[in-house]
């Protein structure tokens, strides 16, 4: 069945991008308080942690794996950051140590998956609990808030008079890196092959285990970076920082058209998914939709996003069948 150029252009990731634009236009026009700089900076600032982790998560899901321990890794780095700060260590030493910790967390996940051949879903549900537990042991129920002002200002501040958070620029750089890695390097090309058919990728000389290990480590690193950002952005390092964030990340990535079975999707779609969910929650809050209803809407949207591409495909198949039936007579 030859697709028309138009039909091929209507891919799920462009649909999500279009939905995001429609939502933004609607919100600017009809939702009171949406367009002011303070609200927009809140929206972006609150969405950034999800977006940061979504970058490596997209690559990981494309390669056929998943990491559910990201929020716990983020919480653990925040907790360690707070504990070390209480010990009087300098913040310039603490932050690299926290990032290193994230690398170790990712390495543990990656080694369990690649060396022992365990499914990543099971492994990272385990480490989700384990890392969070360690975070609680490290910091107890304390909240550390007295980080140096210039760091807090950076994480919470805006660029000049604009609505953009200062952290948005580094995010754009990381986004560009991730887009290039996934869509324009041999590494990214291999990730798609591994996700679509691991066996064939191995027979083509792709170092599958190394590839997955690198992706888990990158995910751990980005999760700890997010943990550091979170603690500074909200000026609070607690063991339960970012709890449940992994579900938002996975939801957004799937909404953005990344196939849960691996091998399909674009990073642009994933990031559009992240900001679509973020903007939707923001708008619902402004419209005084209750928190419970927000969760319901998000959940329904997620189911629709998983169903959407499939339904679209079935409609096109049915249409082809009807065409065949009419030419028959």
């Amino acid at each position: 069945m030859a697709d028309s150029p138009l039909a091929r252009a209507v891919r799920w990731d462009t649909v999500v991008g279009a939905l995001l634009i429609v939502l933004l236009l609607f919100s600017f026009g009809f939702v009171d308080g949406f367009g002011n700089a303070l609200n927009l900076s809140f929206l972006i600032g609150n969405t950034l942690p999800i977006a940061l982790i979504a970058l490596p998560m997209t690559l990981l899901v494309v390669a056929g794996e998943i990491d559910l321990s990201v929020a716990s890794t983020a919480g653990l780095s925040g907790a360690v950051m707070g504990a070390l700060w209480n010990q009087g260590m300098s913040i310039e030493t603490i932050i690299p140590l926290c990032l290193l910790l994230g690398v170790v967390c990712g390495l543990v996940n990656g080694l369990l998956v690649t060396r022992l051949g365990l499914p990543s879903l099971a492994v990272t549900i385990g480490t989700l609990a384990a890392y969070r537990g360690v975070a609680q042991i490290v910091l107890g129920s304390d909240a550390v808030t007295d980080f140096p002002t210039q760091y807090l200002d950076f994480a919470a501040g805006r660029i000049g008079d604009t609505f953009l958070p200062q952290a948005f620029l580094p995010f754009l750089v990381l986004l560009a890196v991730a887009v290039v890695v996934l869509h324009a390097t041999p590494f990214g090309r291999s990730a798609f092959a591994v996700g679509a058919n691991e066996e064939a990728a191995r027979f083509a000389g792709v170092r599958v285990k190394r590839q997955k290990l690198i992706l888990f480590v990158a995910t751990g690193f980005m999760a700890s970076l997010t943990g550091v950002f979170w603690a500074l952005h909200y000026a609070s390092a607690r063991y339960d920082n970012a709890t449940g964030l992994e579900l938002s990340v996975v939801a957004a990535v799937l909404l953005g058209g990344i196939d849960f079975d691996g091998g399909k999707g674009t990073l642009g779609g994933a990031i559009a998914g992240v900001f679509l969910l973020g903007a939707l929650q923001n708008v619902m809050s402004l419209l005084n939709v209750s928190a419970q209803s927000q969760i319901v809407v998000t959940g329904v949207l997620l189911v629709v996003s998983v169903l959407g591409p499939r339904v679209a495909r079935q409609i096109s198949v049915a249409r082809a069948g009807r065409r065949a039936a009419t030419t028959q007579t």
Partner: protein
Amino acid sequence: MPNVPATQLKPFTTLWGRPADVVEEPLMTHPSDTGPAPVLALKDISKSFGAVRALRDVSLELFPGEVHALAGENGAGKSTLIKTLAGVHRPDAGQVLLDGESTVFHGPADARDAGIAVIYQEPTLFPDLSIAENIFMGRQPRRALGRIDHKATHAATLALMQRLGVELDPDRPARGLSIADQQIVEIAKALSFDARVLIMDEPTAALTGSEVARLFGVVRTLRDQGSAVLFISHRLEEIFQICERVTTLRDGAWIASEPLDGMTEDDLVRRMVGRDLDELYPKQDVRAGEVALSVRRLTREGVFTDVSFEVRRGEIVGLAGLVGAGRTEVARAVFGVDRWDGGEVEVDGRTLTNGAPSTAMAAGLALVPEDRRAQGLVMDMSIERNIGLTGLRSTVRAGLMDRGAERSRSLDWAVKLQVKYARIADTVSTLSGGNQQKVVLAKWLATGPKVLIVDEPTRGIDVGTKAEVHRLLSELAADGVAVLMISSDLPEILGMADRVLVMHEGRLTAEIPRSEATEETVMAAATGRAA
């Protein structure tokens, strides 16, 4: 014909299905003017997919009690025709006649209810369920309160097995059954649905000689009981062995329906390809050069032991043996997708790292694996990117993919190997089996290998493509590539190899020069009989 109630026999069963009776029919016509009515017929069927006309005015008649061959190259329209019979595709034009009456199948369930069953090359049984449970999955006989009646299930399965003339324990789990026995279970399942027409799509592709004989025994029993069987195989000798009539398709068009009696394999090939076929085994004489692949005392515990051999530049070395003798496993270990426990492999003078395909590739080794769908190709990826997958190190500029270079490399090799495709960006799953195999070959030849290992290079591909692959291998050897060819197709080994290595139960048992290699010497070594 034991265990067959008389009512199941159609009156003309014994008349039809005997070559002697069919001979009197004029060539190239449908033998339907007289005699029994076809149980299933296609009349002037056409089917298009977009711009591709898969079938054009194709007709086919299947009579009770006959085994009918469907012949044609890959892409000739056989699959589309089968899917039309099975209710998967609705024809754009033409009629499907069931017992002489025009019918429309709205889906596979309609075809099944009409008594049509398709047996595929790779059966899909539930490995942990018993044979009986597999056959009656979802419709087991019930006792009170909806409990499954195991006794009745067992008895019904036993009756089916007796009808097929085979002894298989109904309570045995499907896991561990040979592929032939799995197919027999599928056939039994079809019979339990009262199938009158069995369509067998390349059932023998993965079978050994004795398994083929077992399957054919069942097919003959079915025929004698009045079933119509449509049989598809790329092995021409099998068509002549088991079928009475053949319908040939070429490029979607009906070429002929005729009795096989009196035809030769060459006649059939000519109908299929539309011309005289170039030599099937165009082996050139090449003087062997220096050693390119050297395998020394390679061992993988429990799989193969102490395997040593060399392949020289310009040589084609055949690796023969029964399925399970360890040939594929040796190739996998040499290439690095499996680890070895002892021994050494050298390619072009470089010692390979254990378990590292990327270093093997860097040394100039290429492996065209046995299973092209699972190992050779990423089915959902484009032709371009599949070929490109082996070039991720070469089509790179400043660390980024050079898409222009990737495309021209892929196009180059797709054209060189005459892959038939619409767009290079189409997924490989849209190609026919033979063209898929060419993409796998293109993918590996694009690496410019010094040593090429091909594992079952022509399994499941049509005779025209087969000849092309053989010519290609011969040319590669002439260009100085060392070729190791694993094949279960004995004529292919004998026709193409300069030397034949034979494995038996994980050991290399014989090395036979071309001059002494015959079916007898190779089979004697392969079965462990002293040559």
